[in-house]
């Protein structure tokens, strides 16, 4: 005989505001098997939990139904409470009467009716629940960090510091990411390279860290604590173990007209290259699209001059498989393409540049050795116009609806640096709003305006018009003065919106990690679990989760590392007991379940069966690998003979719920 207890939560007014909780408790108390029903303002509070525990002990409850918020929120809380009172934690069911009821309804009567129905379904289900025991799986004590920018670097260093092995997979030939391309950082104006490169060197020298540069993640299998990841090491046509990074090959290579991607194509480099002086690993890479030897077999200069004998024109992509306990995504961002913003004449004039290009133009290691010159004729610019929000906060469909967050500050930085170095250069900044919420940020922006005399104008630029004389006529509106402005500028700098790296989407599919509509990774909880993905064992670091500046990125990177360390220190993880199993007498070995299983958890075995006529027969039947099954239930739906069933969500239980709803 089932003894079920029902607990209806008010959640303050979150539920009680639209649902008559007392009426729900009263209605559910008459359901078959229910021996106790109560309501309480906050069921998740300590006294709320005590109410549940006491009822379990006092009434000898065999099942508990809690009508409250989403199970994502407090299922674990209530399961723990039940377990501490001696009830198997899988004998607890949650009826979600908040997200799926009170929050979406306005009418008390309808919402109350629906809450009763949801409660009834949960009661019908819990009556059929069976106690389940979680098994344990071992944890691979090694972490993978995908992306070697400042986010990935910081995460890797922190994990290694705690004594765990960690691998960084970086798709470029060097780690360093976007921060390596930046000249100075706000609000302190310290040199980005000076604070980044020591960390890059730390990564290279740390025994616990292994860097797979010029590599990409190809496949991800397994689950939290036990991931198996396929990594492709792209052929760089240089033996990493032999190359000393002397750079002789890059000097002698005749293909000097290769676009220098590190300088965003603003100048050229040789076909064999080291991206920048402080690259880690400091190893040359051959750009196969430009190398004469690789394209048509004529040249071979680099091979001749390399004293280390490191050049290998026949090098192939290498495929590696590694095991990890945790994976951190740190795939970063890129500025958007400006194809939809032709009004700013970016494609038509070399003197219209993006802010990241300006970083390179002002950098001592950039194309002009740190002297700011107009790209078109290498002359000193006397008037520079900055345009903010190019594609940010843009609901027209041309850009991105969100604020890119970093542009206000870096534009203030650029404006200030230019005014400081070239006081004869007038600087105009067109903005929608100036957003500077950060430590010492607003002070920084005010310095740009008050001390450096940067002209901040509220309004957007309508059009940038290249003139015959080489100047750029900027037409804009000054919203505060209510005037149309025309400014003849030498350069225009566009603060292009940032977007997640294009590789993130395919990676998210491999990781089964969710993304939002803008392709930013979704966190497990926007406030309380900001560095974890909803997929167990996947953690988020840096801009892949949302726009952020360097200090915030580093903070999040360390937070992600802390979460990884918390996982890796465990020797064993409790696994989810709600997994599939096959009823072998019903299974006819048709392979339907195997085909739909996204985790590859189903295999087939030949088994001997005793037949009714006392003969034995060998039949092919499905077998579920309990360690790999994630309990998604796809196989139970696909199975034509009803042999597949999911513990905790059996076909019988689901049908009982449906029956209760339709009653």
């Amino acid at each position: 005989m089932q003894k079920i207890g029902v607990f209806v939560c008010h959640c303050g007014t979150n539920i009680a505001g639209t649902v008559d909780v007392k009426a729900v408790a009263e209605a559910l108390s008459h359901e078959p098997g229910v021996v106790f029903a109560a309501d309480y303002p906050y069921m998740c509070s300590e006294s709320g939990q005590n109410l549940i525990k006491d009822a379990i002990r006092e009434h000898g409850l065999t099942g508990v139904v809690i009508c409250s918020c989403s199970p994502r929120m407090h299922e674990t809380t209530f399961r723990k409470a039940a377990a501490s009172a001696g009830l198997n934690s899988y004998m607890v069911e949650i009826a979600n009467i908040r997200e799926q009821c009170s929050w979406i309804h306005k009418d008390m009567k309808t919402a109350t009716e629906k809450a009763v129905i949801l409660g009834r379904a949960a009661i019908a289900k819990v009556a059929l629940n069976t106690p389940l025991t979680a098994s344990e799986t071992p944890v691979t004590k090694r972490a993978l960090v995908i992306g070697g920018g400042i986010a990935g670097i910081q995460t890797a260093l922190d994990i290694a510091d705690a004594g765990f092995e960690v691998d960084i997979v970086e798709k470029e030939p060097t780690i360093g990411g976007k921060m390596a391309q930046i000249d100075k950082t706000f609000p302190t104006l310290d040199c980005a390279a000076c604070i980044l490169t020591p960390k890059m060197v730390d990564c290279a020298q740390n025994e616990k860290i292994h860097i797979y540069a010029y590599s990409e993640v190809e496949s991800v299998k397994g689950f939290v604590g036990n991931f198996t990841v396929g990594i492709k090491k792209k052929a760089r046509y240089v033996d990493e173990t032999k190359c000393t990074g002397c750079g002789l090959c890059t000097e002698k290579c005749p293909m000097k007209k290769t676009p220098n991607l590190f300088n965003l194509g603003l100048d050229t480099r040789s076909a064999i290259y080291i991206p920048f002086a402080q690259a880690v690993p400091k190893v040359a890479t051959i750009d196969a699209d430009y190398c004469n030897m690789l394209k048509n077999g004529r040249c071979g200069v680099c091979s001749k001059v390399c004293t280390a004998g490191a050049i290998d024109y026949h090098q192939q992509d290498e495929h590696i498989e590694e095991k990890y306990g945790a994976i951190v995504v740190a795939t970063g961002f890129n500025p958007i393409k400006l194809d939809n913003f032709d009004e700013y004449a970016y494609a038509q004039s070399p003197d219209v540049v993006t802010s990241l290009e300006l970083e390179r133009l002002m950098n001592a290691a950039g194309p002009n050795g740190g002297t700011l010159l107009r790209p078109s004729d290498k002359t000193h610019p006397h008037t520079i116009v900055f345009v903010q929000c190019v594609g940010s906060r843009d609901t027209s469909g041309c850009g991105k609806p969100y604020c890119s967050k970093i542009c206000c500050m870096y534009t203030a930085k650029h404006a200030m640096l230019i005014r400081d170095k070239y006081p004869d250069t007038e600087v105009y900044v067109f903005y929608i709003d100036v957003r500077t919420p950060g430590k010492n940020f607003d002070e920084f922006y005010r310095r740009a305006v008050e001390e450096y005399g940067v002209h901040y104008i509220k309004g957007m630029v309508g059009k940038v018009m290249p003139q015959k004389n080489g100047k750029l006529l900027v037409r804009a509106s000054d919203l505060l003065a209510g005037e149309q402005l025309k400014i003849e500028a030498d350069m225009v700098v566009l603060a292009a919106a940032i977007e997640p790296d294009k590789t993130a989407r395919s990676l998210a599919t491999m990781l089964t990690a969710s993304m939002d509509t803008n392709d930013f990774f979704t966190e497990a909880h926007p406030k309380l679990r900001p560095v974890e993905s909803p997929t167990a064992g996947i953690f988020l670091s840096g801009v892949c989760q949302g726009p952020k500046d360097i200090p915030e990125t580093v903070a999040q990177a360390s937070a992600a590392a802390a979460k990884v360390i918390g996982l890796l220190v465990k020797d064993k993880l409790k696994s989810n007991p709600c997994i599939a199993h096959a009823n072998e007498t019903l299974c006819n070995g048709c392979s339907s379940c195997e085909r739909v299983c996204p985790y590859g958890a189903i295999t087939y075995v030949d088994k001997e069966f005793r037949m009714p006529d006392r003969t034995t027969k060998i039949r092919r039947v499905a077998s579920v690998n309990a360690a790999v099954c994630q309990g998604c239930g796809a196989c139970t739906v696909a199975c034509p003979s009803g042999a597949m069933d999911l513990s905790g969500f059996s076909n019988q239980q689901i049908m009982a719920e449906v029956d209760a709803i339709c009653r």
Partner: protein
Amino acid sequence: MIFSYYPGCTLKTKAKELDAYARRSAEALGITLSELPEWQCCGGVYTTAEDEIATKLSSVRALMEAKKEGHALVTLCSACHNVIKQTQYALNTDDDMAFKVGNYMQCDARAEADTKVIHYLELLRDIVGFDELKKNVKNPLTGKKIAAYYGCLLLRPSSAMQFDNPENPKIMEDFIRAIGATPVIYPMRNECCGGYITAEDPAMAKKNSTAVWESAKDFDADYIITACPLCRYNLIKSESPLPVIYFTELLAEALDVK
């Protein structure tokens, strides 16, 4: 190939040459433009600024007429093209509008007015093809530096017009290349000439139009070409030192049917 053709009022009065050269050129290119048996004035761009149905009905009738003829509808005047395209766009996207128009016309307006509408330049680009046009040129205008003036009506609103990139169009430049001349790219080519403002505030229209031809002149253009009678009117009225001619005239010249 046969297409229905909507000339519009201006092409029967002030801009006869725009029409005449277009017809002759089309013939030379093996295209038959069959003028709709019955059509009314599109109402000019004023109709698109009004929130009423009646003024848009003449466009709807033209669309339905062409549908009956069974051909795509070719337009030439920028303003007519704009009004007809915008009316069709509104019919397709605005249920209320489709309902009211249906009531007036006593039919399923959305279905009966879903004629494909193309501008004469789109006809050259998408049906004839600029490469094919180039082959038909008998009298290439080599060495002529020509400034294409789009104005706004061909390009905007881009969601309805679907004509070319409104900020950096290239169809007219490609046309200029096809007839052997050199296009002049100047920043004011897609700005407004002042349009009907000229009736109320001639000084304002003059300011706009002057900025256009000054920009074209600055980049050493020999001519300005346009598809719009109103643009041409405003540019000439603002005393453009550059000749302002219809693109069809150059087409006819290149095809040797002028």
